[in-house]
């Protein structure tokens, strides 16, 4: 059981200005929830509280029924800014979590090799992060989290630095993995289409102070309209039901952006 629950969470940093206000969000076990919202509304802050890096000023954040007190490998994080270790090679970066879990050497090598193949970085195993492009670094950060096979995946704009083609490949791969081996995912993105394509539910946040404005159920539509029968992302994105949900979320977000102009 690895649900994530935000229970009346409020957060202010030092100064007392409210960053997050009364956040209530339940991510069920093995559910994929995406958060969209204007820049600076507190999405990363939500994710950091689930990860155990920040703590709520009021309310509680629970993962699997116990309050989050510290970070741990049961909740793998893909950081918005990658946070790869510059002094470690691609392999060493991906391998560290497995070494910490005392996974035997042979199994470790095999799992790292699989992860490297998944992100398409074969041949770069011994490169250092500074020798890779931003998109390649981001893929290493994704592999570093995936390889742990964690109960909970916390992903902060993980495809933000990728080119359109690579992004599509990674999105399709993520969907494939999610169907094959579902796990609890909290996924932050600026891409509305990405959110609708990947998530079971999409939470829309308001601008500061961040609140959950609306939660859109995608899963029931996906099942009813049989999105899974289309293997390619562009075919799904053409479906009328997809376009309808996307437009709905767009409008909702747009009101937030417009509100910021006052």
């Amino acid at each position, binding site marked *: 059981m690895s649900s994530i629950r935000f229970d009346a969470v409020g957060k202010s940093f030092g100064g007392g200005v409210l960053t997050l206000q009364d956040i209530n969000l339940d991510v069920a076990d093995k559910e994929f929830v995406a958060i969209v919202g204007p820049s600076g509304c507190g999405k990363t802050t939500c994710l950091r509280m689930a*990860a*155990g*890096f920040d703590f709520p000023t009021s309310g509680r954040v629970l993962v699997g029924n116990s309050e989050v007190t*510290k*970070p*741990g*490998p049961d*909740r*793998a*994080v893909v*950081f918005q*800014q990658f*946070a*790869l*270790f*510059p*002094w*470690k090679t691609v392999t060493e970066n991906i391998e*560290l*979590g497995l070494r*910490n*879990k005392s996974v035997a050497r042979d199994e470790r090598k095999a799992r790292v090799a699989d992860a490297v193949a998944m992100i398409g970085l074969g041949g770069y195993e011994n490169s*250092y*992060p*500074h*020798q890779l492009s931003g998109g390649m670094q981001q893929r290493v950060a994704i592999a*570093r989290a995936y390889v*742990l096979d964690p109960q909970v995946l916390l992903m902060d704009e993980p495809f933000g630095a990728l080119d359109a083609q690579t992004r599509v490949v990674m999105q399709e791969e993520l969907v494939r993995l999610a169907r094959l081996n579902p796990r609890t995912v909290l996924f932050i993105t600026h891409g509305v289409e990405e959110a609708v394509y990947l998530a079971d539910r999409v939470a829309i946040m308001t601008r500061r102070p961040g609140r959950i404005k609306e939660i859109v159920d995608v899963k029931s539509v996906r099942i009813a309209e049989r999105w899974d029968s289309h293997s390619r992302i562009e075919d799904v994105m053409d479906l009328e039901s997809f376009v309808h949900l996307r437009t709905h979320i767009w409008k909702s977000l747009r009101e937030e952006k417009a509100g910021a102009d006052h």
Partner: protein
Amino acid sequence: MTDVMDPARRLLLGACGLIGFFGLWAAISGSGLVAPTFLPGPLDVARRLVFLLTESFAGGTLLVHLWSSLQRFAAGYLLAAAVGVPLGLLMGRFRTLDDIVSPLFDGLRFIAPIAWVPFAALWFGTGFGGPVLIIFSGAFPPCLLNAYRGAKHVDPRYLEAAEMLGTPSGRIITEVLLPASVPSIIAGLRIGAGLGWQSLVGAELIVASTGVGYLMVQAQSAVSTTTVMVGMAAIGFIGVLIDVALRTIEARIHRRLGGA
């Protein structure tokens, strides 16, 4: 253009400085205004240097004295690095240890190495331990402080990533704090080497029966000012060699980290 010119320019200017210095020195000592023992000329010193390379003074040739100085330096310096760097990293990681050690360390580091001479003499006589203690007290503070500051200034994102991956504390120190602090640690090792080498000679002036410092005290008693100057030159020269060696290591590590 400037990139090509720069090393040549620097070499030229450096040579000008040296020529100017030796020229002025030779002019003053050769002018007859001062007695040769009061300020020996560069040529006298050079002749004395060649002499001391083969002939024994105060129990050995210059190289014998240098060798025993270097041994003491190596012992005291390596001890300072071996204790200072890990302790600094640990203090940077564990708040409690920091709170215990910091007040004591802050007090101790203002005591000049030479102030340890009376106790060095009392505890070790003129043996190996005295100068080693004094070098240690000179080299230790920068080794510890720089490791500590390096560990304190590690980008918190790396620590968060390590904790998220379930990295145990010992491994966070060796695989995150240490590599992230390497530039700062190396800078500390360079400063420590300089201070250690300086305090060594100070220590040998008082608590040793060999070494360059001892050679210089004996020369002072024998009113051989040229020998004193040979000692001074040797100290400067070895100091530069030590620094160049550490700088080479530093540059190599920076290149390996790709400027990260």
